[in-house]
């Protein structure tokens, strides 16, 4: 039984260590989750909702992007949504608001922009629930007005 006592004493420290690491990791993940959300917690108008799971992506992205008057996406840093992805062109697409309608425009990207699975070549009007796909990233267009 002496052997068991030693093991049991070692194990109790291991247990405390494991359980606390577990709790720490969960809290840390929740923290990162909230951090990415909080910027756009109150969107009233139209926004793009990311459909991919955040923790599967190799780069930092927000959960949703409020559109406002105009929003652009691309690899270059002067875009509103910057995607450091080789499949994305430097200036890939933009969405423009015009008299309460939203239009998406492909900026001659090499791999294309897909709306509901169809590649767009010029300008297309967006409707609630449209799915915009660039590379492996999918957004849903949501307009709450």
């Amino acid at each position, binding site marked *: 039984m002496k052997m*068991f*006592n030693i*093991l*049991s*004493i070692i*194990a*109790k*420290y*291991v*247990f*405390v260590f*494991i*359980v*606390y*690491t*577990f*709790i720490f*990791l*969960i*809290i*840390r*993940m*929740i923290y*990162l989750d909230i951090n990415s959300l909080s910027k756009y917690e109150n969107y009233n108008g139209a926004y793009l*909702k990311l459909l991919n*799971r955040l*923790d599967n992506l*190799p780069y*930092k992205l927000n959960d949703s992007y409020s559109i406002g008057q105009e929003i652009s996406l691309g690899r270059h840093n002067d875009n509103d949504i910057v995607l450091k992805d080789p499949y994305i062109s430097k200036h890939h697409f933009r969405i423009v608001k015009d008299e309460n309608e939203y239009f998406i425009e492909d900026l001659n990207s090499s791999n294309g922009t897909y709306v509901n699975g169809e590649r767009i070549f010029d300008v297309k009007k967006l409707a609630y*629930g449209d799915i915009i796909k660039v590379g492996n990233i999918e957004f849903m267009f*949501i307009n709450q007005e």
Partner: protein
Amino acid sequence: MKKLNFKVTRNLLFAFEIISLSLIFLFNWPNIDRNTIYISLGLIGLVYVSNILLFKLSKGDHYIFSIVCMLISIGVIMIYRIDQDLGLRQLKWLYIGIVSFFVTYMVFKSYDRWSKHFNIYLATSYILFFGTLAFGFSTHGSIRWISIGGISFQPSELIKIIFIFILACIYSDSSFLSKPKLIKYKEPVTMILVYSFIAILFIQRNLGASIVFFSIFLGIQYIYSEDNKYTILNILLFSIGGLIGYFLFDHVKIRFLTWLNPWEYIDTIGYQITQSLFAIAEGGFFGTGIGRGHPNFIPLAYNDFIFSAIVEEMGVFTGIAIIMLYLILVYRGFKIALKQKDVFYRIISIGISLLLGIQTFIIIGGVIKLIPLTGLTLPFVSYGGTSILTSFIALGILQGASEKEIYGGPKNE
């Protein structure tokens, strides 16, 4: 940025289960049959696989299930250490629990008209209540069990969930109480309903459950009622009820006496609580180590008093960790409610978070003598088939509600 994901927590959980299991087998050596080993290894596998499965399956919350897996692991190890037979039964209940979690989640997610069946919920809970009164048998001084075909269960545990549905129907204006003619009487009628539930529980001498029901009602009423005077009235009524209960019923009085000074009655009614306090004191920061304490000295150590048993053998640090796990769980529940746009699902999420939070507070507070002790199970940790099953069903509903949050209505995919 360092990539952080659920793989690490999953593996930590796995490591915890393997180490504690080997230790417990070593402790009981050589009185272990093959069956037990297979069943427990199977459960570890099931927990691991279901964590992966849920991650693939669900777009909703992924924290609540991992947290609960950690809680059940700590709990079942302790129950197995206290009593091998009970531990084995608990293992089997956990299988049923996890399966029913997935079933509930699927069913709740795929059906959209939960808010339309107020009358059915109401009828079911009254049938279950009166069924318990008519056919129930009593253990530890309260009538709360009924037995069907050799399997006994506690209807009050199940009614807790139905009760949340009833309140959600009422306050999301989906019940007949919100018809224009009746809307004036919505609050008073709701209160009569709730107090009839509490009265039946009180007759069954199920004090803990009646407090849980009341607290859930108070919480939801405070958030959703237009008029706060009903909330104040509620608190007043409950305090008066408590006072009357104290003077009229012995079993209420005993709880208060053993809370204020258990040392005076250490041989009789104060025995349980004092043993629990001794056990907690014995444990210290890191506990005595599994198999080296005496949790058998506490009556009902595997059930209501599991928290004291855990603190004795695994230390107050593990005790604090358990409280923290419940805190995160309840926090996630409220987070789901905040993101949810549909009022009905929002109230369901709040109700379930309140249920888990209050039940934990009441029983942990009871065994550490912070508040008067009332018999309740610690959700996911204590021994008990009905408790495990209903807790997992509640969790499945919460998981389902977290997924309905995204577009606030039917999914458009």
